[in-house]
């Protein structure tokens, strides 16, 4: 995707600079550097700062910002806008994310690229609106109905809020699927230094284009090309089961089979290209205890791992950046020589259960809810208890 003059001018006045900002703001700047054209959203704590910054900055780069009447409308609007060829996004938190689920499923079924930022807060329901949590891990994966696959990334710093937004848009266009930026209230509201890259360093994925309306939803390709509205192809986009032409066929079993399995497979088959992990610390097979974490929790977790290692004791550490699709291969390899894996997370064990499905060793959930993040000490203690 080439930057137009307005975007280039806008980015050039920021490029190469380092600012001190909220994770939410870093995420919005990341979207601007990703060439976002359209933002539609509805305010919600702790995600509102994403919208506020987009409202201020997006018009300067030539984009359009709308505050819609609710989250259902926001999700609908970004899907509609995506079919005009725009890069589109919304931002929300748990309750709003719940409202978006039906149209998120629509975006999956119609293979519409778009980015949804979910700055998680403590739930269920209105729960603790201003407190951080990681309670939407499974909502991101299974919130909408039916069989599907999804991509979700979890940053753990302001810089990553920025950097991963570029990945979100690229993954979304590459695989023609909605991508979820799964932040949390803590990361969203941390203030940290964030560096903006030079404009020349930004490389965007260009959406693959189809030659005719007959191939927009399948043909022989795992990820078909798109045709945008107004190009004279009379394309038909529907959330109902459809043929490769887009025409509805809701009664033939093999049509549904082919479509839904392909939509799942396009992410499944590219798992290794999509999945990113970080801080893969290993004692080279000597450790019996390992820690896996992600998002805000990975920071005290990493602190604890370092502390234990400083004491001369062996402990391994892995941070998941890609939450979905699950880092199967990396986690399985990580677990190979371990007796136990500790999983600190701000929920009652959503990711630890997923890890458990793929490893042979014991998995212990260091779960914590109530809005108070894990301390380094409590994770250190948990690690030491298992080592001794």
């Amino acid at each position, binding site marked *: 995707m080439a930057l137009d003059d307005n975007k280039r001018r806008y980015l050039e006045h920021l490029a190469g600079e380092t600012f001190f900002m909220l994770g939410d703001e870093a995420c919005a700047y990341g979207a601007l550097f990703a060439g976002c054209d359209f933002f*539609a959203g509805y305010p919600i704590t702790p995600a509102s700062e994403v919208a506020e910054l987009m409202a201020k900055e997006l018009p300067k780069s030539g984009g359009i910002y709308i505050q819609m009447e609710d989250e259902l409308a926001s999700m*609908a609007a970004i899907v*509609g806008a995506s079919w005009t060829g725009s890069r589109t996004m919304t931002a929300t938190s748990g309750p709003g994310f719940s409202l978006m689920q039906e149209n998120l499923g629509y975006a999956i079924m119609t293979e519409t690229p778009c980015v949804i930022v979910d700055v998680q807060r403590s739930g269920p329901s209105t729960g603790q609106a201003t407190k951080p949590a990681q309670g939407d891990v499974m909502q991101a994966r299974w919130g909408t109905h039916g069989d599907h696959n999804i991509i979700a990334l979890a940053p753990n710093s302001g810089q990553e809020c920025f950097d991963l937004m570029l990945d979100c848009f690229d993954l979304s266009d590459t695989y023609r699927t909605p991508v979820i930026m799964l932040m949390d209230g803590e990361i969203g509201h941390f203030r940290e230094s964030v560096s903006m890259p030079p404009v020349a360093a930004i490389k965007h994925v260009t959406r693959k284009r189809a030659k005719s309306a007959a191939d927009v939803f399948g043909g022989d390709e795992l990820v078909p090309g798109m045709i945008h*509205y107004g190009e004279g192809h*009379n394309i038909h986009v529907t*959330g109902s089961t459809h043929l490769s032409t887009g025409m509805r066929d809701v009664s033939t079993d093999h049509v549904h089979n082919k479509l839904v399995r392909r939509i799942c497979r396009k992410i499944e088959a590219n798992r290794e290209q999509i999945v990113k992990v970080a801080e893969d610390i290993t004692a080279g097979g000597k450790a019996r205890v390992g820690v896996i974490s992600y998002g805000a929790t990975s920071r005290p977790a990493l602190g604890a791992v370092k502390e234990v290692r400083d004491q001369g004791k062996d402990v391994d550490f892995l941070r998941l950046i890609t939450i979905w699709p699950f880092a199967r291969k990396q986690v399985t390899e990580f677990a190979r020589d371990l007796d136990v894996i500790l999983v600190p997370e701000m929920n009652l064990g959503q990711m630890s259960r997923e890890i458990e499905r793929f490893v042979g060793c014991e998995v212990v959930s260091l779960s914590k809810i109530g809005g108070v993040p894990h301390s380094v000490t409590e994770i250190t203690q948990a690690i030491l208890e298992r080592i001794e």
Partner: protein
Amino acid sequence: MSTPRHRLMDFVREEIMPHRFCTGCGCGTVLNVFINAVEALELDRTKMVCVSGIGCSAWIPSPYFKADTLHTTHGRPIAFATGVKVMRPDLKVVVIAGDGDVSGIGGNHLIHAARRNIDLTVIMVNNMIYGMTGGQVAPTTPTGVKTTTTPYGNIEPPFNVADLVMAAGASYVSRWTTYHVFQLMKAMKDALSTEGFSFVEIMSQCPDNYGRRIGVRTGVEFLKRFKEQSVRVGKSRDMSEEELKGKFVIGNLCNKERPEYVSQLHKVTDDQVRQLAEETA
């Protein structure tokens, strides 16, 4: 001998004909009138996007109308259409959907689109029932009518959707029935030519699922009723509430100029772009 091809056959996706509407359904009339209005205005169909939700009326454009189409979730077509329109203001974006879709589940999007006065044309086909799901009560079902979910009679008053949209701030609002095809065509042309939010409510027959509840079994019987029950808006002003009971007020309900949303939205962006260009020059 081959059958002669209809002059408007190019306007429909011929490959999926015949259509699936029940015999006598008003949806066919709406499609027919809409296509004629598009032809009469000489609209470029490659620059049109028709958006619809879920239900029988949603099928009018998608899949039958041959242009770019977006068949969305129940109640949300106006919200989807908003995204299309703001990013491609040059496209003519039309929503065709049912009363349940637009005024029931999607009521919130309707009033906000009218309030913003976004340049969309919304054609609401009001058959006074949930047709596709088998005849459940709708927000537009008249009081007293027995439906599958009001077996003891509907106790709720029906929604006057056109009045609601007018009050919310739409530029153009009219209401007709499938009996008034020529007036309806004129209204559709006016709506499609309005810059701003335009809304046409069409009282339409569902002989299959509504007709059977009220004892009107054919499309023709419905048309006769629509003719008898319709009152021109001018005349209605002198009539009491009692006299208007069971009647449809038809005609052009409003046609006013108001600032249009998409152009204002783009002005905000254009101004900011220009300002930044000056500052960084």
